[in-house]
């Protein structure tokens, strides 16, 4: 049985708690209004960081599918669409019935196209109604109106199809963060920009004669995404990866010296190889999935 201990002195027996509750009673009238929020009539005051229903900016979205990749609950999917302005595109949809509102899809979006709104009244009559396709999520103005949490940097972005390997940008860069790297078997070199060092001074973009380097807004990404590893020996030069890449980071370039000699002595078209601009890569794994010849390896990405 319990030890019989002397109770500590609580003065006033029951007077103090009763005074406290009486104080609260009086205070409730002085304040005029109790603490309750009469919910359907008074709207909750939510902070802008609140994670509610998603919105999708169609113009910003590049259809990379990183959001689908990172979703812990597999509640997102890519849907092929035909848009009058944008043509054939792929955009994500969200199943709100399975979403756990963790916010990873928003954080991982390389172009800040996905956002959470403060809308939380998502109840519906049927489970199917909770599947929000891209058209229902579309809001092309929302993303411009909010202050982005992530840092936005203006960085030179390389368009390899215009580049002539003139090396002018290398000389111009004050931070010496642009290095010309030779591309294997193509016989050309391309500027490789160390984005960590880049200050966004725009000098390389000004000096570029072909406008191959352009300054664009790039959002800082805190997730380390998988990088594609290219195996040249398996590449057939079909170009599927280049077509699949949403970030425009893979270019097909001709390899001189691989032309087949045809019967009539003329030379045929040379073989092509894929050139990866890894600074632009968003790590979505679409090239890996598009490649039918096991020329691209991406550890950690599902086929």
């Amino acid at each position, binding site marked *: 049985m319990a030890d019989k201990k002397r109770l500590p002195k609580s003065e006033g027996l029951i007077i103090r708690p009763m005074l406290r509750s009486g104080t*609260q009673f009086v205070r409730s009238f002085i304040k005029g209004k109790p603490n309750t929020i009469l919910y359907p009539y008074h709207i909750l005051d939510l902070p802008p960081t609140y994670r509610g229903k998603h919105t999708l900016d169609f113009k910003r979205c590049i259809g990379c599918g990183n959001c689908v990749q990172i979703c812990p609950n597999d509640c997102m999917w890519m849907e092929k669409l035909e848009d009058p302005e944008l043509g054939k595109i792929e955009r994500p949809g969200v199943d709100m019935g399975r979403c756990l509102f963790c916010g990873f899809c928003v954080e991982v979006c390389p172009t800040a196209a996905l956002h959470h709104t403060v809308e939380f009244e998502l109840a519906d009559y049927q489970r199917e109604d909770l599947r929000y396709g891209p058209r229902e999520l579309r809001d092309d103005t929302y993303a411009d109106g909010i202050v982005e949490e992530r840092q936005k940097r203006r960085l030179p972005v390389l368009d390899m199809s215009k580049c002539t390997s003139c090396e002018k940008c290398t000389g111009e860069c004050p931070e010496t963060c642009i290095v010309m790297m030779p591309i294997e078997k193509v016989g050309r070199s391309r500027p490789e920009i160390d984005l960590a060092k880049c200050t966004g001074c725009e000098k390389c973009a000004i000096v570029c004669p072909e406008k191959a380097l352009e300054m664009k807004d790039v959002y800082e990404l805190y997730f380390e995404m998988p990088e594609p590893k290219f195996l040249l020996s398996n590449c057939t030069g079909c170009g599927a990866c280049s077509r699949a890449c949403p970030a425009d980071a893979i270019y097909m370039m001709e390899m001189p010296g691989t032309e087949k000699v045809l019967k009539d002595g003329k030379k045929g078209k040379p073989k092509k190889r894929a050139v990866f601009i890894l600074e632009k890569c968003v790590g979505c794994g679409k090239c890996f999935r598009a490649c039918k010849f096991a020329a691209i390896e991406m550890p950690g990405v599902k086929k």
Partner: protein
Amino acid sequence: MWINMGPQHPMTHGLWNLRVKVDGETIVDAQPEVGYLHRGIEKICEGRTYTQIIPITDRLCYGSSLTWSHLYCLTAEDLMGVEVPERAEYIRVAAIEMQRIASHLMWLAAYATDLGLMLGFLHAMRDREVFIDLLQALSGSRLTYNYPRIGGVAHDIPPNFERDSLRACAYIENRLREYEDLYEGSRVFMMRNVGVGLLKKEDAINLGVTGPPLRACGVNYDLRKEMPYSVYPEIDFQPAVHPAGDCYARYRVRMDEMYESCKIIRQAIQKMPKGKWRVVAPRNAPVGTGMGRVEDPRGEGMMYIVGDGTDKPYRMKVRSPIFVTVSAAPRMLIGYKVADVVAIMGGLDMCIGETDR
């Protein structure tokens, strides 16, 4: 007569079963049974990448979800060798202490209803709302914050956060004094608590009890002091200890911890440096093991991850404080009345989410 208290019973605060053998109204035997809420979180985590695990660890405990995701991030950082920016550490400490106060207030609320004091329930829940709002502004969600990340925190602190949190600390310190009047000033509360559910110091240590129930037995063991993690060494605070070992001591320890948490939040807000709040964490963990221990509001939480070089953990183990503490329940229960079950089990602050995992 065996009485099943649970799985659906107001006393349980979740889904578990306490079988109590009573003689009249005196308890002669007790058997806690857990396992009704088992979700296999450890196994789920093995199928997910390191990033995707963070929201799952939030779901471990509905009372203090931030502590658990913080613990996971600590463990993963230990495994990957990521250096966290100092600003992120201070933000984390402030957020954890807010979570601790919110969790203790929820405990206070539940404890009040256990003892039949509805007033305490609603007041404590109302004041918990202040901290929930702060954490909501910080992280964007009300219950499952998903705020810490491997290598920092998800967002920077919102504008006015410093002002609001200092204001909230002052507010809650006022309120805590009010609670002390409401609880300790009441003779009935003291009658229900003093000398009830005595746990001896040796028993507590032998049974592996941690956290407030252990400190209420007079053992000064607080992981924030014993094995400092994060930036706790730079913060001045005193772990709350009470020698009595009964329900009142547990109540007192938690109340004191709330005062201490206010102190910690103030210091963390004042000492918070400028700078980055997040670094990029590697996708793949190296081969090896990582371990993290934190002082959860309920006791010592521990996580252990084995990495095998891929982006998913090979094995993840969670040590939950309540799973261990509840095994000490029969020691505390035997010899008391049925009505004391609610006081004793309520004083342990049961959280079945982490217990069953």
